[in-house]
C-alpha cells in the first residue's frame, strides 16, 4: 500500500488573511493540510513558523473560493475531515472520486482488484496509456493524488467482493463508503456492514445508458437544508410587542412626501393591518384583495416603491407561511423523547419542541433576516435590529431549554456550544430527517405500492429500467455474465432477460405489470457497457450526494434514483 505523507497545522485563534479575506471565529480550530511531496522538502521545516500556515490557508481559500461561496468554511472543513472509501475504480468510481478530490476531501481509499485492460483506456480518464496491464487501484489512486495533493490517497489492491466477504472490519474507518458497479447481492451484504459501523453507504452504477444512485443509512439529519425558495418568516400577521412598538413610532400618514415613500413596507403592512382591525372589530381582512385595497388607499403617488413592495408582499399577511410537513414530522419523531444516549441534534429538537409549545407560541425561533425594503437607511436598520433582537431572544430561550435538558439526562449542561444552538435556531424552520430502508428489505409493502403506481404511469421507462437493472444482476448471478455481452448469443439473452424481468416484477408484487419490449432490447444492447459520459453523469450526481451527506447541508436523495441518458432525465423513486 502506498500512503502519502500528511502534515497537519493547527492554527488557533482568529485568522485574518488578505485584510479579512477569511474570518475564522475565535473558538474554531482550523485544520490546514499541507502537501508534502518529494519535490518540496523545504515545507517541512517551514511548518514550524506561523506565516506559512497562514499562507497555505490563503492559498487554500483561493483554490476553493468558488465552492466556499456555496457551503462555507463549515462545509469545507467537514469535507476535509472526511475519510471516504470507493469500491471499484472503473469510470464511475473514478469520476465520483475525481469530483470529490478536486473539492478537497480529507482522504480516500480506492478498492479494486483488477488489471488494466484495453477497454479501460477507452472509458477512464484516470488511467494512462502506459499503465496497460498494471493494477487498476494503484494507477487510479496515483493520478487522483496528482490532481490534488492536499488529499491523502490510499488504495487496496483487492476485489471489493472479497473484502466484503473476508474483512468487514475494514469498513470501520470510513465516514462514507461509495460502492460502484456492485451487484445487488454484494450491496446487501455491504449495507449490513456499513450500518454496523455507522458509515453512510452511497451506491452508484452505470449500465449502458442507465444510471443508478442511492443512499443507505439509518438516519441522516439536516440542519442547513438551504431550500431554494426560502420562506420569509416576517410575522407581519402577528407582530411581537417590540415590533408593534417600533411601528407606533412611525406616522405613515406624514405630510412629508419624501418620508412617505421611504417607510419600509414591513412597517406599512403592520400599521395598515392594525388600522383595518381597529375599523373591523378586530377581524382580519377576509381576502388579499381587501387588504390590497386598504394599502392602495394609503398610497399617494404611482412611483412609491415602498407601497408597491407592500402590495407585492401583502400575501404574507393574509396567508403567512405555514410549517412544512417534513418539519412537523421531525417534531413528532420517536427520537424527540430523549435520553442519555440521544444525539445533540435530537436534544436540540426536543428543546425546540418545548420552546414552540411554550414561549414560541407555536412558531419556531425567528431567523432574524429581513429582505431589502425600499426605505431610508436608518428606518430599515432599526427594523432589522428589532428582528435580530427577537432572533437572539428566541435562540437564548432555546439555549436555556437545551441546558436544562442536558442536565436532566445527566450530561454536561454546556455540552452543546452556543454557536451550534444559534446555528440550529437560525435554520430551525427547515430541519429535515432522512431514513433509508436497508438494501435487504428494500421491497417493503410501502415501496411496492409506490413503485406499482410509477410502473403504471404513462411514461414509465425510468421505473422499468430500475426493474431491468435488478433483472440483469439476477441473470449475471446464474449465467456468470451479463446479457448482451456476447454478440452471438444476443437473441437468447434477450429472451432470458425478458423472463428475468418478469420474475423481478412478480417478486416485488407488481403482477400484471410488464416491461416494454424496446426497453428490454435496449438493456440487452447495453451489454453491461460502462460508457464514460454516463459514468460522468452518475459520478457527478454521486459526488453531489456525497457532499450533501458529508457537510450536512442541502437535501439528499429521498429514495433510489434512476438516470436515463436516452431521455436525459432522472426519476427519484419515492419511498
Amino acid at each position, binding site marked *: 500500500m502506498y500512503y502519502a505523507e500528511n502534515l497537519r497545522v493547527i492554527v488557533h485563534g482568529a485568522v485574518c488573511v*488578505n485584510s*479579512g*479575506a*477569511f474570518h475564522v471565529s475565535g473558538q474554531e480550530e482550523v485544520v490546514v493540510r499541507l502537501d508534502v511531496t518529494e519535490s518540496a522538502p523545504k515545507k517541512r521545516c517551514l511548518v514550524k513558523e506561523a506565516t506559512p500556515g497562514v499562507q497555505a490557508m490563503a492559498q487554500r481559500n483561493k483554490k476553493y473560493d*468558488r*465552492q466556499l*461561496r*456555496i457551503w462555507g468554511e463549515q462545509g469545507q472543513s467537514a469535507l476535509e475531515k472526511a475519510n471516504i472509501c470507493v469500491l471499484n475504480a472503473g*469510470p464511475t468510481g473514478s469520476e465520483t472520486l*475525481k469530483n470529490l478530490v*478536486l*473539492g*478537497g476531501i480529507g482522504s480516500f481509499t480506492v478498492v479494486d482488484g483488477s488489471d488494466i*485492460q*484495453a*477497454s479501460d*483506456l*477507452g*472509458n477512464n*480518464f484516470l488511467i494512462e*496509456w502506459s499503465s496497460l496491464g498494471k493494477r487498476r487501484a494503484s494507477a487510479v489512486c496515483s493520478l487522483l493524488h496528482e490532481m*490534488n495533493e492536499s488529499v491523502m490517497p490510499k488504495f487496496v489492491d483487492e476485489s471489493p467482493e472479497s473484502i466484503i466477504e473476508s474483512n468487514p472490519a475494514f469498513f470501520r474507518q470510513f465516514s462514507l463508503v461509495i460502492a460502484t458497479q456492485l451487484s445487488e447481492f454484494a450491496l446487501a451484504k455491504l449495507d449490513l456492514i456499513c450500518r454496523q459501523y455507522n458509515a453512510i453507504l452511497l451506491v452508484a452504477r452505470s449500465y*449502458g*445508458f442507465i444510471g443508478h444512485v442511492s443512499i443507505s443509512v439509518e438516519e441522516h439529519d439536516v440542519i442547513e*437544508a438551504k431550500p*431554494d425558495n426560502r420562506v420569509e418568516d416576517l410575522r407581519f400577521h402577528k407582530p411581537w410587542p417590540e415590533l408593534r412598538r417600533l411601528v407606533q413610532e412611525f406616522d405613515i400618514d406624514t405630510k412629508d412626501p419624501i418620508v412617505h415613500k421611504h417607510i419600509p413596507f414591513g412597517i406599512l403592512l403592520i400599521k395598515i393591518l392594525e388600522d383595518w382591525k381597529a375599523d373591523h372589530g378586530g377581524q382580519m381582512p377576509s381576502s388579499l384583495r381587501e387588504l390590497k385595497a386598504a394599502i392602495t388607499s394609503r398610497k399617494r403617488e404611482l412611483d412609491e416603491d415602498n407601497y408597491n413592495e407592500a402590495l407585492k408582499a401583502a400575501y404574507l399577511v393574509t396567508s403567512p407561511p405555514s410549517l412544512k410537513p417534513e418539519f412537523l414530522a421531525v417534531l413528532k419523531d420517536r427520537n424527540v423523547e430523549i435520553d442519555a444516549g440521544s444525539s445533540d441534534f435530537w436534544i436540540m429538537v426536543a428543546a425546540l419542541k418545548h420552546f414552540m409549545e411554550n414561549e414560541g407560541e407555536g412558531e419556531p425561533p425567528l431567523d432574524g433576516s429581513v429582505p431589502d425594503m425600499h426605505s*431610508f*437607511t*436608518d428606518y430599515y*436598520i432599526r427594523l432589522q435590529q428589532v428582528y435580530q433582537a427577537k432572533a437572539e431572544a428566541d435562540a437564548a430561550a432555546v439555549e436555556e431549554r437545551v441546558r436544562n435538558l442536558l442536565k436532566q439526562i445527566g450530561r454536561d449542561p454546556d455540552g452543546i456550544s452556543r454557536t451550534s444552538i444559534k446555528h440550529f435556531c437560525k435554520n430551525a424552520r427547515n430541519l429535515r430527517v432522512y431514513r433509508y430502508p436497508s438494501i435487504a428489505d428494500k421491497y417493503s409493502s410501502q415501496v411496492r405500492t409506490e413503485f406499482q403506481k410509477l410502473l403504471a404511469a404513462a411514461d414509465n421507462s425510468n421505473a422499468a429500467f430500475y426493474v431491468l437493472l435488478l433483472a440483469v444482476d439476477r441473470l449475471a448471478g446464474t449465467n456468470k455474465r451479463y446479457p448482451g455481452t456476447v454478440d452471438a448469443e*444476443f437473441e437468447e439473452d434477450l429472451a432470458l432477460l425478458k423472463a428475468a424481468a418478469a420474475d423481478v416484477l412478480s417478486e416485488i408484487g407488481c403482477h400484471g405489470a410488464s416491461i416494454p419490449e424496446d*426497453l428490454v432490447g*435496449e438493456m440487452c*444492447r447495453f*451489454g453491461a*457497457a460502462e*460508457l*464514460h*459520459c*454516463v459514468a*460522468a*453523469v452518475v*459520478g*457527478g*450526481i454521486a*459526488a*453531489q450526494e456525497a*457532499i*450533501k451527506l458529508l457537510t450536512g447541508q*442541502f*437535501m439528499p436523495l429521498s429514495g433510489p*434514483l434512476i*438516470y436515463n*441518458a*436516452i*431521455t*436525459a*432525465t*432522472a426519476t*427519484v423513486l419515492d419511498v
Partner: protein
Amino acid sequence: MMKRKGEDEPWALEPEAMAETVDLEGRWRDLDRLLLRPGYIVGPGFEPGIELRDMIKDDCRVLVIGAGGLGCELLKDLALTGFGNIEVIDMDTIDVSNLNRQFLFRMRDVGQPKAKIAAERVMERVKGVNVVPHYCRIEDKDPFFFRGFQIIVLGLDSLEARSYINAVVCGFLEYESDGSPDLTTIKPMVDGGTEGFKGHARVIIPGLTPCFQCSMWLFPPQVTFPLCTLAETPRSPAHCIEYVHLIQWGQDRPGETFDADNTEHMKWIFEQAARRAEQYNINGVTYILTQGVVKNIIPAIASTNAIVAATCALETLKIATMCSKGMDVFMQYTGTDGVYMRTFQNEKDPNCVVCSPGVPVEVEPDITLKQFIDTILKDSRFENKISMPSVSLQGENLYMQAPPVLEEETRPNLEKALRTLMNGEGGILNINDRKLKGTLRVQVIFKDVDMDAGGCG
C-alpha cells in the same frame, strides 16, 4: 450525414499519423456495444458499424467553445466518446480559483492559456485524439472558421458570448422558398451552463428547435440596484460595495481605470465599502463578499460541471451518430433538494430575429428600396442591431453599403420600387450589417396588395 474533409477546407488538419496506429483491440468495447450493433431506441438513419465509429474519429469535427469548468469536462468526455478531431477556443488564462473544478490544470499552470494547456493534457491522456487550441476571443475568428465544424458545443459563462455565437451559427441557416430550412445549412449547437448545484443543457438545431434568442426569457435578468439607493439610502453590504465600485471610484480616483484583478484596487473598494457600511450601521461587508459583488462571481463545483458537460457530450454523440433518440431540447438540473433532472420541449419564436425564416415587416406597396431601408432602421425590433444595412434577395445584391465599387453599382436601386425589385411579390430579404453577427431575414409583406392592384390596373 457528415461532410467529409475536402480540399475546399483549408483549415482542415491532417490527422496525426499516430492516430491510425494507437487503437488497441477492444479499447472501445463499451462504446462499440452501442455503435456497432442495432438498437431499439435510436435516431433516424442510424447505421451501426465500424464506419460509424471511424466517422466520429476521423471525419466529424467538433468545436468546444470555452476551456473552463465545462470545457475541461467536455474535452475529456468527447475524447473518451471517440471523437478524434476536436478544437477548443478560449481567451482566458488559468487562475488559482479554477483549480477546484478545472481538473486539467495544476498550480504550476497558473497564468497559462486555458485552451493550450487543456488541449495538451487531453492529448497526453487520451491517445489518438487531436485537440487544436485557439487562445483568442470568439469574436476574433472569422465566421468562416465556425463553418468548418459539424457540431459546436458551448461551455460558456456569459449571455453575451452565447448570443454572439448563436447569431453567427444561425446566420449560416438558409431557408427554402417554401419557408422550410435548407437542411444542408443547419449547424447543430449543444449548450451547457451551471451555477452551484444547478445546471442546464440544451440542443439547438437552428431552424428546427428554439435558438438561444428564442428562449432568452429562460435567463433571469441581472439584479441591478437603483443608483439613488446606492448613493442615498444604502441598506445592505452589497449596496455599500456597489456604491464604492460604481460611484466613489470615479470621484476619488479620477482617470484611473478600475481593474477587478488588481489586488490593490479590490482592497481599496473593500476598505471604502467597510467604512461606508460603518457610517450607515450596516453589518457584513467582507473581502470575499466585495470580490463576489464586484466581479459578479458565480459559485461553481466540479460535480455539476461533470453532469452538465457529460449530458452535452452524450447529445453530441447522438447528433453525430443517431445511436439514440435525442433528448427534448432543454434539460434542467437541480441538486439542492434531492435530484431534479427533467427535459422540456419549448417552442420556437416564429418571429425570432435570429433564426426565423423572416421577421414580418409590413410596408406600403409603392415603397422604394431607400424608404424600405429607412423603415427597418426605425423598427424597434432591430434597434441597436443594424445601422448601415445591405439588402439582398436570394443571393442577388439589391443594395450594398460596401465595398465602394458595389455600392456605386447598386446605388441606382435605392430609388426603384421595392416591389419591382422583388419581382412583384413579397418575400424574404436578407439584411447584412456590420453590427449583425449573422444575416437578418426580413419577410416583406405589401399592404393591401389586392386593392392596390385594382386601383392601379
